[in-house]
C-alpha cells in the first residue's frame, strides 16, 4: 500500500458555512495502480488531490502514506516547477545528475520516452536554452519531463495537460505510463471523459466516483 484514505471529508474553514465539500471517502492506492477520480464539476476532485498532497488538512478522517513514500502534485500550473533563469540542462540536473538508464535497463524505456517527448517540441535534455526563453507549450513539456526524470512513489495529476494539444497529450500520457512501469509508482488523476482515450491501459485501473455532500 502506498497511500490509504480513510473516511476523509473536507469543509472550507468558514464560520458561516461548515458544509462538507464531498461525501466521506475511503480507498487505497497500491504500487503500479492508476486511480481515476471522476465526478461532476464541483465534486471536490481537486480539493481531494490537495489533501493528498498535504496542501490541505482534511476536516475528518485521515490520509496514511507508506513510510518514506514521496508524493508530487502536478496541476495546470505545472510550469511553476520551473525556474526561468535555469537552462533545460540545469533543470534536469536538479533531479538527476545524469539522465542514464540503470544497470538492469528498467529505466531505459522511460528515458527514451522523455527524450522523445522533448524532441517533439524541438528540445534535448542537455540543451543550454534558458527556460524563460521557451514557449508556454515547451515549458509544460520540460516541467513534466524533468519531474518524471526523478523518482516519486505517488503522482497526483490534476488536469496537468489542460493547455496541451492532442498529440502532446498522448505523448505525455505515454510518458506517465512508462514512468509507472519503471518505478512501480501509484498514480491518482482527475478524469475528464473526453480525454480518457489517451490514458495508459497497462497496470491496475481503479475508478473512484466523487459526489458533493
Amino acid at each position, binding site marked *: 500500500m502506498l497511500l490509504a484514505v480513510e473516511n476523509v471529508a473536507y469543509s472550507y474553514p468558514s464560520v458561516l458555512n461548515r458544509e462538507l465539500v464531498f461525501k466521506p471517502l475511503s480507498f487505497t492506492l497500491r504500487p503500479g495502480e492508476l486511480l481515476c477520480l471522476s465526478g461532476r464539476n464541483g465534486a471536490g476532485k481537486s480539493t481531494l488531490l490537495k489533501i493528498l498532497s498535504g496542501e490541505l488538512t482534511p476536516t475528518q478522517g485521515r490520509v496514511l502514506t507508506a513510510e518514506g513514500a514521496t508524493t508530487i502534485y502536478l496541476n495546470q500550473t505545472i510550469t511553476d*516547477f520551473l525556474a526561468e*533563469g535555469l537552462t533545460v540542462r540545469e533543470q534536469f540536473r536538479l533531479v538527476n545528475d545524469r539522465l542514464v538508464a540503470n544497470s538492469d535497463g528498467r529505466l531505459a524505456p522511460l528515458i527514451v520516452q522523455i527524450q522523445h517527448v522533448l524532441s517533439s517540441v524541438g528540445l534535448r535534455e542537455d540543451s543550454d536554452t534558458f527556460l*524563460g526563453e521557451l514557449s508556454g507549450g515547451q515549458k509544460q513539456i520540460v516541467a513534466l519531463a524533468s519531474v518524471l526524470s526523478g523518482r516519486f512513489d505517488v503522482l497526483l495529476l490534476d488536469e496537468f495537460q489542460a493547455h496541451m494539444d492532442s498529440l502532446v497529450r498522448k505523448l505525455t500520457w505515454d510518458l506517465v505510463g512508462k514512468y509507472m512501469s519503471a518505478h512501480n509508482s501509484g498514480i491518482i488523476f482527475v478524469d475528464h471523459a473526453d480525454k480518457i482515450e489517451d490514458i495508459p491501459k497497462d497496470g491496475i485501473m481503479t475508478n473512484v466516483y466523487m459526489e458533493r455532500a
Partner: protein
Amino acid sequence: MLEVALYLGGLVDHTLYNSLGYILVALGVLICIRFMGFPDLTADGSFTLGACGYAVAIKAHVPLPLALGAACILGVMAGTATAFVNQFLKVGKIISSILVMIVAVTITPYLAGNSTLGLLVSSPLINQMNTMDIALSKALLGGGQLTAHPTMILFFMAFTAVLIMASGYMFKSRLGIRMRYLGSAPVPGLIAASARKLLLAAGLATGNGMIAMGGAVEAERNGGFSSGMGLGALLIGLTILVLGEGLMKIRLRRDFLSVNESLLAVVVGVCVYSLGVQLVLSAGFYFVDVRLLSTIFLLGALTMSSYFHPNSTKLF
C-alpha cells in the same frame, strides 16, 4: 600629454582601488537577492559586522587572512540568523532580514568597545604593501602627493578572483543549481521541503559572508571601522548588480544570464559604478553623498533595464 596619462592612470587606480570592497558586497547581493531570491536587508548589518570583526582582529595583531576569515564568519552567522528567523520563527523575509540587520549593527560597538575603531597600524602584510605602493608611486610619479595602490589592488583582486571562481564553481554544481532553483521557481516542488531550509541558510550565509568580507576590505581602505559605515551597503551592491546585469543583457541581447555571465556582470558593474563615482567627484561634485549618487545610478540602471529587458528586470 604626461598630464593626461597621469590623470587617466590616477582614474584607473582610484576606480579599481574603490572597487575592492564593493565588488565583494555586490557578489554577496548577487547570491542573496538574485540566486536565492531573498530580499536580504541583512547586507548593511553584515557589512558593518565584517568591518568591525576585521578591525578588532587586526588591532589584536591577528594575521590578515585570519582577520578576513573572522569577518567572513560574522557575516555567515548573520546570514544564518536571517534564514533561521525566516524559516523557523516564520517571520516574513523582509522583516527577518531587517531584524538581524538591526541586531548586527547594534552589537558592533560592544564588539569593538566603541562605535569607531581606527586602524593606524594595520597587519604587517598590509604595511608591506603600503610601503611598496609608496615606493612605486615615488618611482613612477615623482615626489608629488599622489599615491597609487598597485600592490594593494593586485593583492585584493587576486583574492576576489579566487572568491569569484569558487562562487562560479559552487553555483554551477548540482548543489548550486538547487539553491538557484529554490530562489526563483514559483513552486520549488523538486526540492524536498526538509532540504529547503538548509539550502536557504547556506545561500544566505555564503552571500552575507562575502558582504562581511567586503566590509573588512572597506575598513582596511578607510583606516578603521565605524558603526554607521554599513548604511547603504545594500544600495551600492544592488546598484552595481543591476548596472552590470543591464549592460551584459544589452551586450548579449538576452533576457537571462548564466552563472558565469552573472559573475562577470558584477565585475563590469563595479568598474562602471566606481568609474562613474570617480568622474562625478573629479568633475567637482565632491559634496555629493555617495549614497545619494548610488540612488541616482540605481534609478538610471533600473530604468535602462526595464526599458530593454522588461521580463527579467523584476527584483522581486
